[in-house]
């Protein structure tokens, strides 16, 4: 039990760099390729796709990626773990098996699928049994918006991943398994850690947190000395080498771009951080104030000292619900006095919306180039700006009002302030808002439904 386990991140989100997983597999030895696809809003997008086509509802670009990697997987000794299954892990697993068959590799590849996180079919039953699933931020009970719910998935921990690996799976495809559970699972499987060894659970969780956003831990989006980060045309995605005692090294393959430094790992550690003493996952509670980082060579950061506490009796539920409609329109005004022209246009637009009697929950105006990202903290405009983009968004539960707004942008070109351009894209799209409702539910009503199935390719 003295070996370290090498887990390589292949994707940091649905839409990440497609070359990364292939390079992780071919750039040096790894034991596991971990690919995280699911963000807060991803499940609702997948649910929408599934409602249009029952064979959809997962990260479909995962399949052509696997097609490229399956020959490597068949000849080497690494395994793949991914939550690419989204709201339809079965369809995802079957598509991957189809790809293996096409390549003549079906005998060499064992695919497991993890299901049971989807509680949408049981939602009414759960509500009736007294599970209120109140919004963790606002305290509202789910019954307030029950009719608008699009998807509902519990965040599942590492347990089914461990089971799938124990049953010999080469490829584990899950639904809403936590980002960190995808990394902790293989560590529990390989090192035989006790599931109540809370320091180890925290260590594996933090290893997972560091690599779950891909290159964001290895030089991508790194603010400190950003000009000195070289080779981002070919960034090395992060790899953790985890020892049986839970200490680990963050690194990347040699001959790749980017950097693994105390700074790059620290920035990823604080990303999306809440209370650092209590990073809650289904597998335990990690204490980020216990982490010790040390540069241990070029592109190697040693991580140790991690402490954790017992898991709670709740699981987080990710619920998506129909909220309303929105549209965002933009126009570009040029020098001279670009900002003043854009401001005048905004005033005219708002007057017209008012005269039309349109009501919105919010009308938000930003001036890109002046204050869009830093608001009142930004330096005051000088009047010498080459151009300023007027960006106006509206939100309403009245679709017609939003549609009418989307027809009020273009007329400003000929009926408003001068020196305006940038309307090549046509009318702003009217988008449905599917919003996120975070809630908690008793673990005991979810976990018995979690199921691992090993499919024979």
């Amino acid at each position, binding site marked *: 039990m003295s070996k370290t386990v090498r887990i390589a991140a292949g994707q940091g989100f649905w839409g990440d760099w497609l070359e990364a997983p292939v390079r992780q597999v071919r750039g040096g030895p790894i034991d596991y390729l971990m690919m995280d696809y699911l963000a*807060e*809003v991803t499940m*609702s997008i997948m649910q929408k796709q599934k409602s249009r086509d029952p064979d959809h509802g997962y990260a479909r670009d995962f399949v052509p990626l696997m097609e490229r990697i399956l020959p490597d997987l068949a000849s080497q000794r690494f395994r793949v773990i991914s939550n690419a299954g989204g709201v339809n892990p079965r369809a995802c697993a079957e598509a991957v098996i189809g790809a293996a068959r096409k390549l003549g590799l079906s005998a060499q590849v064992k695919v497991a699928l993890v299901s049971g996180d989807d509680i949408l079919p049981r939602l009414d039953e759960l509500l009736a049994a007294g599970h209120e699933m109140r919004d963790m*931020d606002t305290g509202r009970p789910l019954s307030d918006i029950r009719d608008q719910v699009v998807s509902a998935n519990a965040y599942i921990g590492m347990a089914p991943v461990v089971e799938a690996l124990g049953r010999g799976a080469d490829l584990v495809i899950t639904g809403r398994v936590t980002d960190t559970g995808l990394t902790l699972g293989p560590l529990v499987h390989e090192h035989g850690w006790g599931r109540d060894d809370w320091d180890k659970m925290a260590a594996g969780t933090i290893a997972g947190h560091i690599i779950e956003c891909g290159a964001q831990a290895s030089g991508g*989006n790194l*603010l*400190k000395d950003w000009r000195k980060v070289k080779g981002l045309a070919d960034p090395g995605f992060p790899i953790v080498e985890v020892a049986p005692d839970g200490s680990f090294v963050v690194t990347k393959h040699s001959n790749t771009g980017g950097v693994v430094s105390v*700074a790059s790992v*620290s*920035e*990823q*550690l*604080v*990303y*999306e*951080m*809440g*209370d*650092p*003493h209590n990073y809650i996952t289904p597998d335990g509670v990690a204490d*980020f*104030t*216990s*982490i*010790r*980082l040390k540069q241990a060579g070029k592109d190697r950061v040693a991580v140790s*000292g991690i402490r954790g506490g017992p898991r709670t009796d709740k699981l987080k539920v990710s619920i998506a619900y129909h*909220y309303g409609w*929105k549209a*965002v329109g933009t126009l570009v005004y040029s020098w001279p006095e670009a900002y003043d022209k854009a401001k005048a246009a905004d005033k005219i637009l708002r007057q017209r919306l008012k005269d039309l009697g349109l009501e919105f929950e*919010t009308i*938000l105006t*930003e001036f*890109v180039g002046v204050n*869009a*990202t*830093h*608001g*009142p*903290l930004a*330096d005051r405009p000088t009047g010498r700006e080459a151009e300023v983009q007027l*960006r106006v*968004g*509206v*939100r309403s539960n009245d679709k017609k009002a939003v549609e009418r707004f989307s027809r009020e942008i273009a007329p400003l070109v000929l009926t408003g302030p001068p020196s305006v351009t940038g309307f090549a894209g046509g009318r702003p799209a009217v988008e449905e*808002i*599917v*919003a*996120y409702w*975070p809630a908690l539910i008793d673990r005991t009503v979810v976990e018995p439904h979690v199921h691992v199935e090993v499919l024979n390719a």
Partner: protein
Amino acid sequence: MPSARKKAHRPTGPQARQVQLRWLAHARSGDKGDTANVGLIALQPEWYELIRKEVTLARVKAHFKGMVSGVERFELPNLWALNFLLHGALDGGGTISLKTDAQGKVYSTALLRMRIPVPAAILRSLPTQAKQAKG
């Protein structure tokens, strides 16, 4: 920058000077619903104590006045870092938000605009640009 803001924090010593945090720290931010977080990390471990002392809850609240509804502050001395939760910062957040920065990705740099008084000993090790009023 309006002069009222500069006067808000007087230097603590005779040689102290107001310096923008961008010269003393790096940062990354992310989101959870309508809350943005900013992790602020000292560029040099020996600057952490200054940042811990000067980047107080009250000052961060004042810095983001009108942009957020509430602030929480946590210390991570092991990473030479502070973590701030900026509540109500994202116009509803996620898919609801109409903001360009709907997921709070660059609230990090907005915090780096803040100025804190820096004593002479640390000032000496900063680049010239850091000591200019416009920074």
